[in-house]
């Protein structure tokens, strides 16, 4: 069965960080429409700092752990605990794996989602990152046996989930008070989450080995 190595795959996390930093202005802009306009700033600061601290040859699990530590101890806001827990649980799940196959990839994402659920209280439909993440986890679990298809499906499920937030009315966070006025803009957290998952999947796909 195909898999990608844990060792040496920390570059995936650096690539994710680079994409988040590139999207700094855009993520803040959409947050600004219905939130307080700092999502890109918060994310870029955390991911940018983490990237500097990830060794060139780091494993995926170590890189995720570094990212989580920076988010939890230096970023704060909502993203610190939410993404902090997400990456911490993902890292712990695959820490002992030499290779990550479709089953381990699904387990990793499920653990990440549970990490978020342990601190946040969002449900699908609340117009949050959860709306990108839950369908992605479900796609991962539905495609355990074929990691190539899985990586493709996870990324597009996350993006479809992100798109679904555009028509939602926010029920949580700063945007919730807007009611109907929150419709028409994608959620900032769902957008960053889709970017993260897209780049996680693309990075993993480039590292696939037939086992």
């Amino acid at each position, binding site marked *: 069965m195909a898999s990608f190595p844990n060792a040496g795959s920390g570059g995936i996390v650096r690539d994710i960080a680079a994409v988040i930093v590139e999207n700094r202005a855009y993520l803040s802009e959409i947050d600004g429409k219905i939130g307080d306009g*700092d999502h890109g700033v918060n994310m870029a600061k955390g991911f940018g700092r983490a990237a500097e601290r990830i060794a060139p040859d780091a494993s995926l699990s170590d890189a995720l752990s570094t990212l989580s530590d920076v988010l*939890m*101890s230096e970023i*704060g*806001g909502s993203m610190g*605990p939410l993404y902090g827990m997400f990456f911490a649980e993902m890292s712990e799940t695959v820490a002992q794996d030499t290779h990550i196959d479709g089953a381990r990839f699904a387990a990793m994402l499920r653990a990440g989602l549970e990490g978020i659920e342990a601190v*946040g209280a969002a449900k699908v439909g609340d117009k949050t990152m959860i709306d990108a993440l839950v369908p992605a986890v479900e796609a991962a679990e539905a495609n355990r046996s074929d990691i190539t298809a899985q990586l493709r499906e996870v990324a597009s499920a996350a993006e479809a989930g992100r798109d679904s937030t555009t028509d939602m009315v926010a029920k949580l966070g700063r945007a919730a*008070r807007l009611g109907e006025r929150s419709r028409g803009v994608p959620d900032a957290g769902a957008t960053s989450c889709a970017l993260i998952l897209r780049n996680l999947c693309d990075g993993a796909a480039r590292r696939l080995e037939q086992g």
Partner: protein
Amino acid sequence: MQRFLNDPDDIVDETVRGFVRAHADRVRLCDGNARVVVARDAPVSGKVGIVTGGGSGHEPAFVGYTGAGMVDATAIGELFSSPTAKSFHDAIKAADGGAGVVVLYGNYAGDNMNVKMASRMAAKDGVEVLTVVANDDVSSAPPEEREKRRGVAGEIFMWKIGGAKAAEGADAAAVRDAAQGAIDACRSVGVGLAPCTLPAVGHPNFSIEAGTMEMGIGHHGEPGTSVTKLGTADEIASEMTRIVLDDHDLPSGTEVAVLVSGLGATPRGELYVLYDRMARDIEDRGLKIHKAYVGDYFTSLEMVGATLTVMALDDERKRLLAASTDCPAFGAA
């Protein structure tokens, strides 16, 4: 942006550094965490520790309320963003005098999560942590969903009452109850006339058309309940008082403390113009103003606007409000 700015990423560190430098007689930086400010004399052995924390950009809140008789340690976040769980945890450790710690903070998603995680970390250290979450902003949810309401300037009263109770030597549960009672007795409303700009973002984080105002606005520019034509100062003051007191529903004769805070760029004189009308309206509803505070107590960068907070008093709260305090934003200069 016509602002005093170096690298936007450094604002918070520079603000905290300047703050601690200016008020070194009353506060110090936490060992090993430049985002936690600790009262000079904290931890006081045997005294319940008081912790708060929140995003930056609200100066003098939160950091300015650190000091004797008020908050022992304050965790500091980025502009408009919750402090990290680690900072809340470090603040709890710095405030702990062995009698437990009460964290008094505002009801925002990030703060809720970070305080929760910090409390778990502190529990592992064996520190008893109780929490009170402020939800005095009446415009942020209907009365039946009070748990969804944001915390705003009522937090100052919560810190004052909780801090004074702890200074009296009460145990953690009693301090928690006093602080909870204070915030339960508070109702607040904000109005925004012009937005503010996060320097790292570079443009106003929301917009208010000239000639209009946003009633019920939040401390970070969270949308209010209505956007209407800009009223006269008297009309706005009366509407704010009505919103607060309709929600509060206090029996005639109740004594209250009143706090009117500017949001950052409102001339101080105008706050008194608002207060003049509010005070008369409050008294017309049969309430008695025991003590008033008018100034920039809890701001939102350079937002133009104001908040009104009314706290109902009883004998205990009157005593605790009068207790001596010495923090940079409140008390001896």
